[in-house]
């Protein structure tokens, strides 16, 4: 042991504790105040737990912005659109990594470029286009844009994964007379399960948390996704009361927090764009 490393180890621990506390305080206060009785809320922040009214507060939030349909909508958008996007991305990933042919770089950037653009790049034409075609404020409209925006990054993950599948598998299947469709269904798709799962988890969280398309391409309570409903709740902060808004925010965040806690490794690998 180096003589200088003892005080520096203590300093390191102290730093870690301070940082973790600073990060944790907002979370702690949100939870404590979401439990606080809404009628008893004095306008003063509660620093210590005193009531146990979380469920009542969630119920009030649910009523205030009609959470029911928006939760179901977001479930549809995040699960079905997310899964469909990952499948479409797997097709394309297979085409550029397993089927021989030219212009790989061209196809890669054509599809992947969609992941680089900010939503603002195509928001206004999308809005006017949706208005003209009757897709505005429909579930189909939001479903379509969520599939389209999830494809590029899923494609990136699937392509990277499929490049790591040994080409011998592909060649052996071909020699047995399997066509590309069968090679994909019987070999590449089953071999890509971890990457498919990682991409799906990532897109599920992305769609669930999405707001901008939600508020631009829909307005009615029956169609809008859950974060648009939460934004509506927040804009009524004064009338519904802080504990209700906080409880609502906690409640709608639960799915993504749980998914994140359960699948941290999948997140780490998709973020790095690394092979899964």
């Amino acid at each position, binding site marked *: 042991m180096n003589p200088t490393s003892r005080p520096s180890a203590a300093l390191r621990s102290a730093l870690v504790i301070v940082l973790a506390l600073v990060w944790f305080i907002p979370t702690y206060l949100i939870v404590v105040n979401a439990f606080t009785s809404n009628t008893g809320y004095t306008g003063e922040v509660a620093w210590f737990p005193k009531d146990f009214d979380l469920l009542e507060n969630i119920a009030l939030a649910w009523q205030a912005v009609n959470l029911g349909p928006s939760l179901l909508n977001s479930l549809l958008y995040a699960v079905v659109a997310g899964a469909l996007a990952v499948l479409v991305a797997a097709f394309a990933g297979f085409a550029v990594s397993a089927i021989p042919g030219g212009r790989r770089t061209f196809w890669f950037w054509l599809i992947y470029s969609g992941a680089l653009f900010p939503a603002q790049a195509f928001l206004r034409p999308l809005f006017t286009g949706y208005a003209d075609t009757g897709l505005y404020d429909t579930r189909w409209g939001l479903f379509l844009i969520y599939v389209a925006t999830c494809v590029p990054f899923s494609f990136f993950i699937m392509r990277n994964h499929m490049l790591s599948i040994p080409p011998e598998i592909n060649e052996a299947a071909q020699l047995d007379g399997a066509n590309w469709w069968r090679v994909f269904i019987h070999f590449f798709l089953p071999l890509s399960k971890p990457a498919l799962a990682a991409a799906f988890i990532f897109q599920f969280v992305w769609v669930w948390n999405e707001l901008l398309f939600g508020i631009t391409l829909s307005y009615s309570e029956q169609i809008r996704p859950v974060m648009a409903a939460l934004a509506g709740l927040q804009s009524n902060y004064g009338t519904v009361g802080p504990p209700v808004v906080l409880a609502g925010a906690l409640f709608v965040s639960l799915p993504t927090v749980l998914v994140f806690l359960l699948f941290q490794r999948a997140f780490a690998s998709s973020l790095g*764009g690394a092979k899964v």
Partner: protein
Amino acid sequence: MTASHETRAIATGRRDASDASMPTGGRGTRARSRLLFLLPAVLLVGVLSLAPFVWTVGRSLFDDAVIDPQFNWFASYARLVSDPVIIKSLGNTVMWLVGTVIIPVGLGLAIAALTSSVSWGRWARLAIVLPYALSGTAVAVVWNFMLQDSGALNSLLRGLGLDALAHPWLLEWPGNTIVLILANSWQASGVAVILYLVGLQGVPRETVEAAALDGVDGLKRFFHIVLPQLRGTTAVVMGISLANGLKSFDLIWVLTNGGPGRATETLAVSMYWQSFVLQRPGSGAAIAVVLTIVVVAISVAYLRKQLKND
């Protein structure tokens, strides 16, 4: 990393060699099935992202009239730099970029390094990474509760007898933009921590141990031995953080609506204001194009690094 390069090279080589002897059809059917596999993705991205983007670029060359707009070259872009609201928005965007490099990237590195050196670091890390799973909207709810007049931060300051420091955090510029950047960092640092942890695991133990034996220790060891090995990771973390910071809309929109008096806007929010609130599609499109160019340039820079590495 290089191993996969080799397999890829071998793979393509073999494929080319066996092209002629492939039993399933000739080049024609293969090209056709390849296109069929590509078609759904290309259609979706083409129709719902690329085509609208091309339209946005075209629209930015027309004026702000909603009905029957006139072609006027780059006048919309010229108007951006003469509109005080947009100039402020550009300034805020630069503040966001600087703040993003310092906090999510710098602090992310510090947190990853510090927590990987203590045994209970896992738990500390969880507190820091968890907000990353929240939506921008939920983060806005959290920080509205912390920062508003009767919020938690002022309550804490008054409780500590520091009444002089308590003030409406979201009302005065540039303080409000700074607290927005901090609120964003609360959420965004998690990504940097995750990526740096992966990077740190890739630093060879032997190098660090050899340096320790040579008597290089503490901060010096970190900056001279470990950090240079993390150059690739830093490029990726910086690229992802900067691109996300520039795209950040939900937090600002829900927390301040870009206000008060449009003082906390960044380009991402200004585009929404011009296009949808004020119905000025010309300047909205021009902002969208400028924002896109910056975001894509940053992303391509780090992606080239990332793609080269794997």
